[in-house]
């Protein structure tokens, strides 16, 4: 608790989203004047939701927010700004073709702050950016500073940063931390949202750990250590009860060697990953979202060209093959986003050949016409075998429930009788029954001798299903382990940025 200098007090905050998701289950949070407060947790812990409430982007379902001694009910970010609260979100919100100066003064109401004012501000807080440079030509580190200056130009003294180091290089991170400390000296208070334990220890004064919508603890940074934070951040909620026949690896299916993949923002997202997967095995990839998992999956499927490294499937180097040739050789890919896997405007029937028509000669005749009869049979087969509930195969995919859409995707991919299956977040957003159904299918595939790569940020899912798994952090694997030979503390540390070797060598 703060002593006489409490700025923000959030009491018993509950947030239920319209779809029924409970993001926050009674959270207390306080922020003192002139501190950097870390908000630590993995995906779905509720960090961002909590701060969106403070910044006026969301309304709490229940609970009280007190800012500077006054009870507040923000209806918009503008309300929060009036109380000096500003948030810098993960997706950078700058206008790329505007200059830094134009961006900084963009949000100002009334008269636009003068150049002199912004220059003075930069000197005061020690954040120097080239004001006339066009933002799209600036590095992510500098853009981050522009974002912060934009907030400061709006007279913000409570600054919330959501995963601000995501796309920054180590030296840019050091720069950013220097700036944050300077801001603190100038009396600003900062909330630093992250899943990176190291960074919390390096830059914060206090840290609050959230897990699945609950506060697991709030401690002074100087009085804690990585292991304690890791333990608070991660915990097995439920042991998944999935019947799994014993693990019988049966030959190498896939070898990935020193794979490096570029992300969408022009910064490498996968930075040298090596592993192998056997037939008859589920290989899990755990980790907080946004650490390169999607880019890894897309590189394996051939959608993204790797910068470096090799992918060998079934003994053949497939690194240079295109997507459809990989599918042809027995690879199936269940992407994270159902709106990519299915075309919602298309009927179930039209969605059926989506990932098969490019290579399967049985679906197309020599003149290039689709063999509708074959595709209808296939479509009916998927619906029957995988219990997809739909009025007919002519109904548009958008008319199916989320669970049935996913069954359609999974069914379609498994009907191709693949050898290697890549599944990314395959149970996200599904109800209990559908989740269990999909998980059982994956286990069945594995037990029938296929290789399954399961990429998920749901730790319980990874631990419950995988035979071996890796924890991915910042584009790298922190270690490859077996689920029953790892402690929660070790898991938390790896997800927060420590390698398994470091942990074992007691360097943490």
């Amino acid at each position: 608790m703060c002593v006489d200098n409490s700025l923000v007090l959030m009491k018993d905050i509950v947030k239920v989203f319209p779809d029924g998701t409970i993001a926050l289950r009674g959270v207390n949070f306080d922020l003192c004047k002139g501190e950097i407060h870390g908000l630590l947790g993995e995906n779905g812990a509720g960090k961002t939701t909590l701060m969106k409430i403070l910044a006026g982007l969301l309304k709490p379902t229940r609970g009280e927010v007190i800012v500077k001694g006054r009870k507040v009910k923000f209806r918009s970010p503008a309300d929060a700004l009036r109380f000096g609260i500003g948030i810098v979100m993960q997706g950078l919100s700058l206008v790329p073709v505007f200059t830094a100066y134009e961006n900084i003064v963009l949000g100002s109401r009334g008269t636009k702050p003068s150049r002199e004012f912004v220059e003075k501000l930069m000197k005061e807080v020690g954040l120097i950016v080239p004001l006339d440079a066009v933002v799209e030509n600036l590095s992510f580190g500098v853009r981050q500073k522009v974002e912060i200056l934009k907030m400061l130009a709006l007279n913000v003294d409570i600054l919330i940063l959501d995963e601000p180091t995501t796309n920054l290089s180590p030296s840019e991170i050091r720069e950013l931390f220097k700036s944050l400390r300077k801001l603190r000296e100038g009396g600003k208070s900062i909330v630093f949202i992250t899943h990176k334990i190291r960074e919390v220890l390096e830059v914060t004064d206090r840290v609050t750990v959230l897990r699945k919508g609950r506060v697991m603890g709030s401690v002074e940074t100087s009085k804690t250590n990585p292991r304690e934070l890791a333990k608070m951040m991660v915990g097995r909620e439920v042991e998944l009860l999935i019947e799994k026949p014993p693990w019988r690896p049966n030959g190498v299916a896939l070898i990935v060697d020193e794979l490096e993949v570029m992300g969408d923002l022009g910064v490498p997202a996968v930075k040298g990953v090596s592993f192998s997967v056997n037939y008859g095995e589920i290989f899990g990839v755990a980790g907080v979202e946004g650490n390169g998992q999607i880019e890894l999956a897309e590189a394996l499927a051939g959608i993204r060209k790797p910068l470096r490294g090799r992918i060998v499937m079934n003994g053949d180097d497939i690194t240079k093959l295109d997507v459809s040739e990989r599918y042809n050789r027995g690879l199936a890919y269940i992407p994270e986003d159902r709106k990519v896997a299915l075309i919602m405007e298309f009927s179930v029937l039209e969605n059926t050949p989506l990932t098969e028509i490019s290579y399967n000669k049985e679906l197309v005749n020599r003149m290039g016409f689709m063999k509708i009869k074959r595709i209808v049979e296939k479509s009916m087969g998927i619906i029957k075998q995988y219990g997809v509930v739909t009025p007919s195969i002519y109904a548009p995919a958008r008319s199916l429930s989320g669970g049935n859409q996913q069954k359609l995707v999974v069914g379609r991919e498994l009907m191709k009788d693949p050898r290697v299956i890549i599944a990314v977040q395959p149970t996200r957003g599904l109800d209990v029954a559908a989740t269990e159904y999909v998980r059982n299918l994956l286990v069945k595939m594995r037990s029938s001798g296929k290789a399954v790569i399961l990429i998920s940020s749901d730790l319980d899912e990874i631990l419950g299903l995988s035979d071996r798994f890796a924890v991915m952090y910042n584009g790298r694997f922190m270690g490859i382990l077996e689920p029953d030979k790892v402690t929660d503390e070790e898991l938390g540390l790896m997800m927060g940025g420590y390698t398994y070797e470091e942990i074992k060598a007691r360097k943490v």
Partner: protein
Amino acid sequence: MVNSRFTEYLVYIGNVALAILIGLALGALIIWLGGYDPVKAYTGLFETSFNPSDYYYFASTLSYATPVIFTGLTFAISSRAGIFNIGAEGQMYMGALGAVIVASMNLPSPLILPMALITGTLMGALWGLIAGLFRALRNVNEVVATIMLNWIAFWIIEYARNYGLGDPRRQEKTISMPIEGRLPLLVKNTELSMAFVIALVIAILVYIFMWRTKIGYYIRVLGAGVKTAKYAGIDPRIITLYVFIIGGALSGLGGALEICGRPPTYAITTAASNIAGFGFTGISVSLLGLNHPILIIPASVIIGGLLAGSRGMQIKAKVPLEMVMAVQGLIIIALSVPGFTFVYRRWRIKKALRGGESA
């Protein structure tokens, strides 16, 4: 679901009817402000387009519907792929030029017609391909590229008419298609030729192509988004090229058919005046026909009637040509609105479905 889609279309037809009324009302206002008689003008319009007692006029309507079926198809295919190809205008010019080139070559008579149509189709395809290459390889915005290419095509045919392909006896047009290369008329003493039948057949073929072939399927998948296309194992660049080549070929064929099948000139006249505008009108036709190859046919007849009726407005109500064009444009814009909002709404729904919910 079937029911709701049916209602959706019913509402759409209602909207079209409303749009026609609004367009006519706005047009009437302009005519009235110009000091002319709107009732007379519109009587003239309908008497010379949808006149039940004189088939000549309806034939004229269908002859105007013919070219805009082709340009409408060009736009429809591209829009199904999520591409905005508004180059049908230039592609049609090039197709017409191709036919005129063949007309100038003194080929054996049985060869003239097929060669004219093939050359026109290929030149249209080439014109589409150029824009396609810019888009696929250099990611140049297709709207900019096609607009530029429209002008380039315009000046190429103007140049050709002045130097080499001009009619030596009549300055204001190119060489005409010789009699052997002309399509037979469907109805004597009208402007309606076999070209209209070809247009109907092509529209049906495009429908089959889009919904029954692998490439057509790919084109529609691309319309659902580049991410999905890549996931399906499709190279978006190649499909983009297909869209431009096929679209260009269709408008090119449409242009060649204007030369081979459109009395009285069977040639390109000064400033392309007898083919200018069909490319852009095709966009309206496609939107009115919900970018669907079959629905484009009725849409083209409605708009063809407007184009055909402009003469009647001039003659019967003495409305000057400029004002007739303004009224015509107004009604066409009004007609595109329901189709545009229909397509746009679906696109919004699609986008909303795609842009997930943040927690």
